[in-house]
């Protein structure tokens, strides 16, 4: 029982940062933006989370700083891609490089270390024990005792689905992606919608980063997002946007992450680390097979 519980908990932990970033990507996806900057936003969030947590001695401030840091990245994206109309792909790549360089640089300048910053002074996001849920047999160990961020994520999934499909903003959001000139001629500037979608993405990627450095582990290391932003991008593309589908796929990827840890007893760690990425390829395979469009 413990192995399974451990596996499921590992799955949920591994899935969470991917899920949060992918939800952010979903908003920009629906708005019609080709956003590949989730990796950079997540990394920035992770760094500022540690910064805020360490200096303010509070995980809450860590989360706040993570969101702010990630928002700065989002604002840069907005400045270049929406206002100056620079190519979105290029902006995303430049932003990812900028985030990598800036976080490495700042870690060196502020904490005077290279490679990784780990310190007992970093306050991590706590786990929450819900006595009522803990009593449920079998599921109790899973439903209760998870990191706070995971409960927040569940709420966000529900909220996202509601916002995108039931509200006025959601109607306009999807319209911006389906046919931006149509939205413009309806009197709603599609640029404004795109801007908001990027801001939401910034917030969510900030949360993803905060969980990475204050929940999953408690440290910041160079390039610690490790390609998760790309996996979340793959998730968005594979699912075509629906928040619940994103949740499912993220759990799948999280599972492979946990599976990797399990398999470490049987094969060199390098191979087990490959598992999430191979899994993404397999998922892409199934997606591509069934979506084999006629090329015209």
């Amino acid at each position: 029982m413990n192995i399974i519980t451990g596996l499921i908990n590992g799955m949920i932990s591994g899935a969470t940062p991917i899920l949060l970033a992918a939800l952010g990507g979903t908003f920009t996806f629906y708005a019609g933006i080709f956003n590949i900057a989730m990796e950079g936003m997540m990394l920035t969030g992770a760094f500022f989370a540690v910064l805020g947590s360490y200096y303010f001695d509070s995980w809450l401030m860590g989360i706040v700083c993570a969101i702010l840091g990630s928002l700065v990245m989002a604002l840069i994206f907005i400045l270049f891609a929406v206002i100056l109309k620079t190519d979105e792909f290029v902006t995303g790549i430049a932003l990812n490089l900028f985030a990598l360089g800036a976080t490495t640089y700042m870690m060196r300048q502020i904490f005077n270390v290279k490679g990784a910053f780990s310190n007992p002074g970093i306050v991590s996001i706590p786990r929450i024990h819900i006595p009522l849920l803990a009593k449920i047999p079998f599921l109790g160990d899973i439903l209760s005792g998870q990191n706070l961020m995971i409960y927040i994520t569940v709420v966000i999934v529900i909220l996202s689905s509601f916002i995108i499909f039931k509200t006025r903003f959601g109607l306009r959001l999807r319209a911006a992606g389906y046919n931006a000139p149509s939205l413009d001629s309806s009197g709603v500037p599609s640029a404004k919608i795109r801007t908001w979608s990027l801001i939401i993405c910034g917030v969510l990627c900030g949360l993803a980063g905060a969980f990475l450095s204050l929940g999953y582990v408690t440290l910041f290391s160079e390039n610690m997002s490790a390609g998760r932003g790309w996996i979340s991008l793959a998730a968005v593309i594979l699912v075509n946007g629906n928040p619940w589908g994103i949740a499912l796929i993220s759990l799948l990827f999280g599972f492979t992450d946990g599976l990797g840890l399990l398999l470490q007893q049987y094969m060199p760690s390098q191979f087990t680390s490959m598992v999430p990425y191979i899994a993404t390829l397999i998922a892409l395979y199934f997606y591509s097979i069934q979506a084999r469009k006629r090329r015209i």
Partner: protein
Amino acid sequence: MQRKLISGIIGIFIALLIGAIIMLLQGYNPLQTYGALFNFSLFGLFPLATTLRNSVPLILTGLSASVAFASGPINLGQPGQLLMGALFATVGGLYLDLPSWLLIPVLLFLSMLGGALWSGVAAMLRKWFNMDEFITTLMLNMIADFFTFWAISYPFFDRSAYSPMTPQINTNGWLPIWGEFNSNVIVMILAFIVIYFVFNRLTAGYEWRITGQNSLFARLGGIKIDKNYVTVMLVTGALAGLAGGLVVMAGPHRFLKGLGANYAWDGVMIAVVANNGLIGTLLYGLFFSAMQTGSLGMELITAVPREFIQVLQAVTVLVIVAGRGYLDIVIDKTIARRKARERTV
């Protein structure tokens, strides 16, 4: 051509300005810092030779990305292709005993083979299963990273070393150094000439370029875009692989953990800022190499950490790319406004 040069120079200038502001805010002296930066990269035979030597992987991966993007396929797999190229060259250099004049070309060939093989995987996945090479090349990067890590930790591990690395390759495979000047630059220049010729003068290059701009038009014109797609992927993979082989053969002469590190992503960045132009890639490659080479000296003299260069690079890219489009819009709008004023009765 002129507009490109001007916007490039203005962009670099603005980026350096922004960098100077960031430095001032932190209490560093920008003039001293930039002085040290360029002193250690351009002023003097040793700095210049070092900059040239370091520019080789940047330019080759940049060419790989430029040619790919300009022809259609979004090959973001240079990091992985570089590593596989380096691995193939290393393994060849460990087990083949041939005279220098033979071993070096063979190893170079093996490195291109390694890179082409790796990009070929992505090409086949696209051809057989319609899997987007954007994602597959990215995933393959991570997989190559782990795979080569395993390879240098187990089967090809140097038992006498303290960290994961292979033994040194046969000295016959070491690229010769003439004074300060490393011959990997020769290989790079040869590769550049070849790819420039192919891309601009050969029928194949013409077809690649047009396909990259409008694949439907190319297809309707009778161009076999599927065949060309695979060729481009293989060629650009080979370029990145060659970069990897040269890193090993001109540098540490063995495969260490962390080889190639950022080179390949920088290659994509260079292609982007050069707008996929081949000559632009060459020039920007030299420029970024100068910045990276000089950053070590910069850190020695003024204590500005060399990671600052990564920030500066990204800022340069953003400024130049944003400025490029913006400059055109501004110039056109000014002309339009003047014309309107002329016609007022």
